């Protein structure tokens, strides 16, 4: 959980190198968070308590979701059958309150971002569930810990296409949910095209710090699911496996950075098609494991 903001640092550094710049230090996201936490706050006159609930519920939901997620050889705090549903709905809960906080300001900008956020996440959710259902089908279990823990090299040998398709689908969900290119551009602030960044325009100080940290945790969370499938190596040594998973996370960050440097944001209409394509990919993965 402490490492999560570092992922953003790695992505930013990758983009800087790809653009021929030196770039900000890797720990810049931490510095931003600390600075924000120590600041005062400005609230809009229009807002109510719903606006102030947004960041706290969002961060609390992410931390609870992290508790249900295994990492490397370390199991989740409390794994149970169907915890993947809980994780997805915790993300939905966080989104619900973020969107309401955005609408609470009465700003057209933020409402526009909110509207896009709910649109894309409604389409991303079936892809996420079907991708995990394909995995559940292969491993025969229903909790994230046992599901992700039983992905092995042998399973890759046996069902590489299905696993690959699942990763592709989950990768699209990862990019969409974390507001990265090609779905959203996290570096612009006042474009009519943005989604996540525009929703948080009116948050400041500690509230904004909570939102930023929750966003980092969300990226870690969805990334960890992908890495657990993509790095199926079980050595028996939990430290070694944990290190391997962390290395995998950084590799994923580098990949995201390269994607961001090499392509532009898609048109809004295309994003919908991309997400539907992700649903189709996970459907295909399922069809492959059904045989």
């Amino acid at each position, binding site marked *: 959980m402490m490492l999560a903001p570092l992922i953003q640092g790695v992505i930013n550094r990758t983009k800087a190198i790809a653009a021929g710049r030196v770039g900000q230090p890797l720990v810049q996201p931490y510095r931003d968070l600390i600075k924000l936490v120590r600041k005062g706050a400005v609230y809009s006159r*229009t807002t109510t308590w719903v606006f102030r*609930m947004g*960041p706290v519920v969002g961060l609390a939901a992410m931390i*609870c979701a992290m508790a249900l997620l295994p990492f490397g050889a370390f199991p989740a705090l409390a794994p*149970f059958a169907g915890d993947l549903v809980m994780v997805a709905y915790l993300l939905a809960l966080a989104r619900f309150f973020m969107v309401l906080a955005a609408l609470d*300001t009465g700003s057209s900008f933020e409402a526009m971002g*909110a509207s896009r956020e*709910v649109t894309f996440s409604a389409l991303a959710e079936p892809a996420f569930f079907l991708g995990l259902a394909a995995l559940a089908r292969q491993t025969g279990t229903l909790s994230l810990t046992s599901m992700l823990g039983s992905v092995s090299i042998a399973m890759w040998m046996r069902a590489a296409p299905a696993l690959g398709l699942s990763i592709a689908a989950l990768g699209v969900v990862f990019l969409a949910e974390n507001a990265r290119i090609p779905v959203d551009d996290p570096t612009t602030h006042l474009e009519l095209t943005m989604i996540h960044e525009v929703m948080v325009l009116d948050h400041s100080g500690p509230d904004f710090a909570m939102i930023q940290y929750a966003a980092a945790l969300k990226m870690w969370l969805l990334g960890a699911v992908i890495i657990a499938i993509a790095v199926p190596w079980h050595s028996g040594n939990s430290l070694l496996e944990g290190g391997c998973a962390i290395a995998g996370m950084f590799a994923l960050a580098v990949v995201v950075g390269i994607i961001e440097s090499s392509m532009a944001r898609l048109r809004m209409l295309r994003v919908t098609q991309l997400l539907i394509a992700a649903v189709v990919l996970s459907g295909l993965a399922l069809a492959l494991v059904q045989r």
Partner: protein
Amino acid sequence: MSALLIALLSFGAGAMGALAFANRGRAATICGAGGILIGCACGIIPALRVALGEPSQSIRMAWDVPYGSLFLELDPLSGFFLIPVFVLCALAAIYGTDYLEAYRGRKTLAAPWFFFNLLVASMVVVILSRNGVLFLMAWEVMALSSFFLVTFEDEKESTRQAGWVYLVASHIGTAFLLVLFILLGRASGSLDFDRFSASSGAGLLFVLALVGFGTKAGFIPLHVWLPEAHPAAPSHVSAVMSAVMIKTGIYGLVRVMMLLGAPQAWWGWVLCGIGLSSGVIGVLLALAQHDLKRLLAYHSVENIGIIALGLGVGTLGLCAGLPAVAVMGFAGALLHVLNHALFKGLLFLAAGNVVHSTHSREIDHLGGLLRRMPRTGAIFLIGAAAISGLPPLNGFISEFLIYLASFKGAVTLEGANSVPMLATIAGLALIGGLAAACFTKAFGIVFLGEPRSEHAEQAHEVGLAMVMPGAVLAGACILIGLLGASVVSAMAPLISEVTGLSAPIVRASLSTAAHSIALVSITGGALAGLATLFAIGRAIALSNRSVSTNLTWDCGYAEPSRRMQYTASSFAQPLTDTFDLMLQTRRHVIAPQGLFPKEASLATETPDPCQEYIYRPLFSAIGRDLLLLRPLQQGQVQLYILYIAVTLLLLLLWQLA
């Protein structure tokens, strides 16, 4: 059982009292509401006890009506469906005492109280009756009393139209039920449920039940009356109709499936298909609505779809011999019946407060109500989160059970049999995402931001009698969310009766589900704790720093007009555009023209596609064909006597031949 009979008597007394004191001011209200409150208080205890596993009770008396008998039985299934009836009707009665006051002087209040008592009594009899004739009579009384409640404001053209659609739809449904009961009773020559034998033609009977009860429940494409009738009715009546009356359709379907014996796999496929289409199309149509109560009505269609998905998954589990899937599917579906009653009742009552206070149901004319109606806003938010299936509230618990059942089915079933399970998983995920989109829209546009009209500007909080029922329901939503494990374990006798599986198997499956749900609730509790902790931490951190308030940031443009806010239609537009194939939204655009455009406007409307493409053409064709018979109708008595004579003559000839 005697307590339930006393409850029925109390409803009768309330109805009569309301009529007797029709001209005595508040006396009619006191009688009407009092009858319901006393009756519900009497009835709830036996219903709860039997639902939790006490032995069933029954009463059987002879009746002069051919094939009829006064045969009532309270078993776990009936008891379970009676709980929301009693809770919701009592709360709606309290709400109604205040809500109907606004009409005093203009209308007699005796009629709505009379019919409300009648509606509650008929729902109780429908759920208890074990005789076809008695069932159909109660069913008819239920339809008629709710028709008169829907048409309470009959001076409005739209209300009369809505009532008409409802009446026709109800009776088409009842026609199917009539055939169903005749076929069921044909073999034994009795219409008592315990003598029914459905050895042959169970498939046909299932389809008849599906159409007949599905019309009441609101399965797509039989749902067309719902979005008409719910907005037209007074809000406490919409709450009762949407929360419990349409559930009598689900009750009937489950009851008939129990009577038909071992289910066939294609029933499960059909139920899953209906559930998927009702769920997805229901929530999409809800997204496209501008009318707050119409939006809620379409959400009832969506939630009925979720219930059908659970029933379908459960049925498939039974057919495939997977008790865990069957138990969790049925438990999820039935728990969702209760949960939907709680949060939909809450939402309709809160929407009623909004209508009462602003005189507008148009979402795009509202806004900023949370500051003006803080309590109504808070309970609406809880209802919105619960209906979107968010943890740790009750909606999540029942959806979680259905997810769990279909994941289990998807993992174990082979080949084509796993397709409905996977479709259920994907469908529930899509429905969940769209429902969250719809309720962020409803809550965000109505209660947040700045008011968009004079009406919304001058809104005020309503009285205690109209806030308290919603608050009680909100409390119940939170409670079921946090105590989900105990609730699910307590459903064992009910599930055992419905699935026909032995009690130990049911208990074992439910306890594995309860284990997961306990952890869900613990996570939910931890979430609430963490959020409180963060809020306190923020308050402490900000206590000695500069905290200021200012205008909303609008890119340096500091004079935003209220009409420049995003509207509900613009919020939903990306989704309605994506699914335009199913919605066929119409746009009426006056585009700006010339260099200095004067006037421009954009209006969108999304009529119900089933109404538009199936029923309207169908009924106008029938109407056109029936015109041919019009010359027979001349209005002369002699001619009618001639018709009678000719008919008699023909019958005589037929008899002789």
